[in-house]
């Protein structure tokens, strides 16, 4: 069933290419239909989710098939408490952004096909339980993204941004490939016995602790995920990619692709090499805090709407990594706090996906009407588009961590959990909370409040599709913020076995 979630969109991509290009509405409807299949499937998976009985690996609903058994690589997919919410998030964000209107540049079929392809591989990343398969999907996500940014991005700069994105993240993913290979080579004495099976690698931890190989592998993974996440100073591919990408693509980039990095931190580094992780937890936490503060401060100085939001991603993903680092800093003691930190980190992935996804869709609506992102050119839009204003306000407040909205649930847990382990770092990280508050409020103020420049007097209110997409995301943001119990239960079911806490 999970397999269908991966391959139905892929089939959809192929179908899209074969359809006639003339009827935009029909194409969009078909694409949406394909994109909704994974959402339904992931909802069913959520329903069936057991929550990792004690003594089990925590993974369930596993589906497998032989792929390259000679090398110990197999097609293996499944979920646990950490991947399940991300899968749902991915399916949801893709559906929301695939229907979001955008300028198709006369290549509507390939747009939807690529989008569906990207959905397929993104789901694959979160579902894969085989390292090689994971890598396959991971790399393919770069390809899909490259074409989407390059072909439908804004202007000539888009090509450059796309290339930069591709180069930068490919460098990271290749570092990961090396690390995967080191891990693989240590999993057995010869090819027949080696394996890429993540469940097995998590259970046996063939490469853990000090030692050069472990360090190398860890650094490889670390670089890969730090680039993808991104952590300062590996973040510079992000702003141009975001600014030049069309809005739905930005949504996916921020909402789904960045999560792959942090997911990797949890799924691979923390699960497979916890002892090595401990040795590097502190530097990682420092990097995370730097990202938090740096991302927020640099975002504050941006005059470009999308760039500003892009930099807040650096800030928010810093929180995630801080949570993960805190969770992995000790092998015993402070269990409650570490569970809290990791749970918070996972919630932050979901929350950031929803919130920033919504924010980028909002920028898309703005771009469609204004074709600019310069904050200085806006003002007073609240009078023209109250619905957008309301949605943007809620999203902005969620992003700055207002309680009652999704971001708070995550950030609070991360902060509290991290404080128990790294009090000073956590305290420094709090600065980010203030700066994000300032930057988002200023953003709202500049775009929606104040005087309306004359050139926007013909501004149109959101269309139905836009409204529905955004509302769904915002409602979820509120729901997670008010009643996160179900989400937290699922996540904790994944976090506890991972940290060895009952």
């Amino acid at each position, binding site marked *: 069933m999970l397999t269908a979630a991966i391959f139905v969109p892929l089939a959809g991509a192929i179908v899209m290419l074969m359809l006639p290009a003339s009827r935009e509405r029909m194409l969009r409807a078909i694409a949406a239909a394909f994109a909704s299949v994974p959402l339904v499937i992931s909802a069913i998976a959520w329903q069936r989710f057991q929550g990792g009985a004690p003594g089990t690996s925590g993974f369930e609903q596993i589906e497998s098939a032989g792929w390259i058994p000679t090398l110990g690589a197999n097609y293996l997919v499944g979920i646990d408490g950490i991947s399940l919410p991300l899968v749902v998030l991915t399916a949801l964000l893709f559906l929301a952004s695939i229907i979001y209107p955008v300028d198709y540049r006369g290549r509507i079929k390939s747009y939807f096909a690529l989008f569906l392809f990207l959905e397929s591989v993104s789901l694959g990343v979160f579902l894969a339980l085989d390292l090689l398969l994971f890598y396959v999907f991971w790399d393919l996500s770069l390809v899909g993204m490259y074409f989407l940014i390059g072909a439908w991005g804004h202007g000539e700069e888009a090509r450059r941004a796309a290339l930069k994105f591709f180069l930068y993240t490919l460098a990271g993913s290749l570092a990961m490939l090396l690390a995967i290979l080191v891990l693989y080579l240590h999993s057995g004495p010869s090819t027949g016995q080696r394996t890429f099976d993540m469940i097995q690698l998590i259970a046996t931890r063939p490469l853990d602790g000090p030692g050069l190989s472990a360090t190398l592998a860890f650094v490889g993974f670390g670089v890969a995920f730090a680039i993808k996440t991104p952590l300062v100073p590996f973040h510079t591919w992000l702003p141009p990619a975001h600014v030049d990408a069309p809005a739905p693509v930005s949504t996916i980039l921020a909402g789904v692709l960045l999560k792959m990095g942090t997911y990797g931190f949890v799924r691979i580094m923390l699960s497979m090499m916890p002892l090595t992780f401990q040795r590097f937890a502190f530097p990682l936490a420092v990097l995370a805090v730097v990202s938090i503060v740096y991302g927020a401060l640099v975002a504050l100085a941006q005059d470009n709407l999308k760039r500003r939001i892009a930099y807040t991603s650096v800030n928010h993903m810093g929180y995630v990594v801080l949570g993960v680092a805190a969770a992995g800093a000790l092998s015993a003691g402070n269990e409650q706090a570490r569970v809290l930190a990791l749970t918070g980190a996972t919630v932050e992935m979901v929350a950031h996906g929803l919130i920033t996804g919504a924010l980028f869709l909002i920028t898309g609506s703005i771009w469609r009407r204004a074709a600019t992102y310069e904050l200085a050119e806006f003002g007073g839009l609240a009078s023209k588009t109250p619905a957008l204003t309301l949605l943007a306000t809620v999203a902005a407040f969620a992003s700055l961590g207002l309680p009652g909205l999704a971001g708070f649930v995550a950030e609070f847990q991360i902060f*509290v959990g991290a404080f128990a382990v790294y009090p000073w770092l956590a305290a420094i990280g709090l600065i980010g*909370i203030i700066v994000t508050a300032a930057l988002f409020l200023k953003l709202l103020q500049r775009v929606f409040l104040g005087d309306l420049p004359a050139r926007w007097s013909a501004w149109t209110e959101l269309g139905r599709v836009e409204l529905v997409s955004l509302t769904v995301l915002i409602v979820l943001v509120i729901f997670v913020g008010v009643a996160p119990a179900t989400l*937290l239960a699922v996540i*904790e079911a994944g976090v506890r076995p991972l940290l060895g806490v009952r």
Partner: protein
Amino acid sequence: MLSLWLLPSLPILGAVVMFLPTKFAPLSSARFLRIFSSAVLTATLALAVTALVVSLHPTTLSWGPTLQLALELSPISGIMIVLVPTIAIPVLLYATSSMSEDVGLPRLIALLVGFCGAMELLVLASDFLTLLLAWELVGAASWALIGFDWRDNGTSRSALQAFITTRVGDLGLYLAAAALFAGTSTFSFSAVGQLSGTALSVVVGGVMFAAAAKSAQLPFSPWLFSAMAGPTAASALLHSATMVAAGAYLIARLAPVLSLASWFAPAVIALGLSTAIAGGLVALIQSDLKRALAASTSAQYGLMLVAVGAGVPAAAALHLIAHAAFKALLFLGAGIVLHSAGTLDMSKLRLGAALPRVARLFGIGTLALAAVPPLGGAFSKEQILAAAETGPRGGGWIVAGVLVAGFLSALYAGRLYLLAFGKSEPTARSVAPSRIEYASIGALALVSVALGLLWMPGADGIFERVSGSALADGNSGLLLASLATIVFAAFIDWRLWRTDNLFELAVPDLIRRGVEDWLGLPALAQRFIVQPVYWFSTELARFDQRWIDAGISAVASFTSSVSRVFAWWGENGMDGVVSATAAATGGIATASRTFDDSAIDRFIEGLARGVGVVGSKSRRLQTGLSHDYYTIVAIGAAVILAVAGIARYVAVS
């Protein structure tokens, strides 16, 4: 089973209902909003009373095993849950009337009602998670209220400033919650007692920090001035029973556990007293009516903190109630003043003749502010004085301080009244307030007067029972001293009024301007916090683009210098290398001078730029001349031999 959760959720849901259907005209009429909001708040009030009488079920909202949102009815929160709707109803009535023409009215009313809901949640919280949640919601609601008139850029800036300032304070709560959890794995208020040492200090410090920010104590006081940008009703509610009250409430609520830290009492007294006196001075010298009231708010909350610090939270609670009533009254009065006179500049008011009824009601508020018996405000102030003297941690200098603060409040209260409602010729342009507005300030005046019942013998006993903690024993000498200061203050006011010096107070303009704006605190903050942060962030962004984004430029420049060698080789051929090894360095220098950046093309940046240069230059190795290829082969073969030899040597040794 009625749950305590109903208490906050009822107003919040009511707010949502009022906020959403803005398209349907009847539902956004002032009339409907007035009825609906009053109904909601009345229901809340009824619930609150019920909660006090029959004790509602203290259910817990569970987010997860460690994240439990618990509500609990402590004595002091019992007082607050009643107080909030009690004050809010008249304020809302006023709002529906005074702003009935505004298209944003539904938003305003919804926000006000929601604000009350958040405040209810805040006062019921029994753990730091819930508290923080409510705490920040209150802050966000205040942002929306202050920035109500969003078309005005200044307003939104003020809202931003207010929000950011209080949010800085919120960090204290974050820290407190985290430190508490790190020590005890729970967020419950009751667990604070298990802490000691640094952890305890962090919790106490965090709480104090947060409370100081919310209650506009030094150095956060200036945000209250920004808060003035909001509508009058918002200010009234904000200053009296919600927002600002939260800080004092929290300190009072947690006083028993907070006092476990030995430095808590002196610190909080110092904080309160300094704010009370500074606030008094600022209020005294103020030329703007609302600002004067705002400064007085800081001062009055400072006094409450002093009471808590002295060990008598009940006195603080008492003053909180009294203050809520008269401050809401005063603010609404100021709103009417603004409405009718079009200005709040106290040099231009003197509305006594124009608005005689308002003047009388405002006068009640002023008297309460000045602590003139037998009003409730006086009683609570006397209780604070008593606490300062006989409270567990009272002391002589505290008494002196409170007396000075009391003197100042009497002084500025008198000045306010005289300047605002002193008799003069009736002006033609004054607009009479509506009936509802009269009713609302009348109701608040009534409450203020009714609180005078506290002077009745035995009333303090009842209050002690309700609040669950003891008041300090009064002392008639102290009472007399206090009265004397009030009289003295009144005398001074009168003298100045008669000599027409009451407005200027004979203070040089320079000092006036300095003191007026909170002793220059905002300017300091602007100069030393806000501007540096912006500067830093701009510089950081520049750094980000220029350096980090440009890749590892050191490597890039290294590679490009390597490429220069290649380039030189390409131009001069292998023969040149052999013939002039010595000249090579000079050659590199020459090549580097003539190195042309235009070769660096479009799109691979940073590190890639370096590689790219190497690429374009190394192509020159491919001269297309066979004999150069031969040379490469010869060199390559030699290198291979050398490497093999070295490898062999290494393998053997």
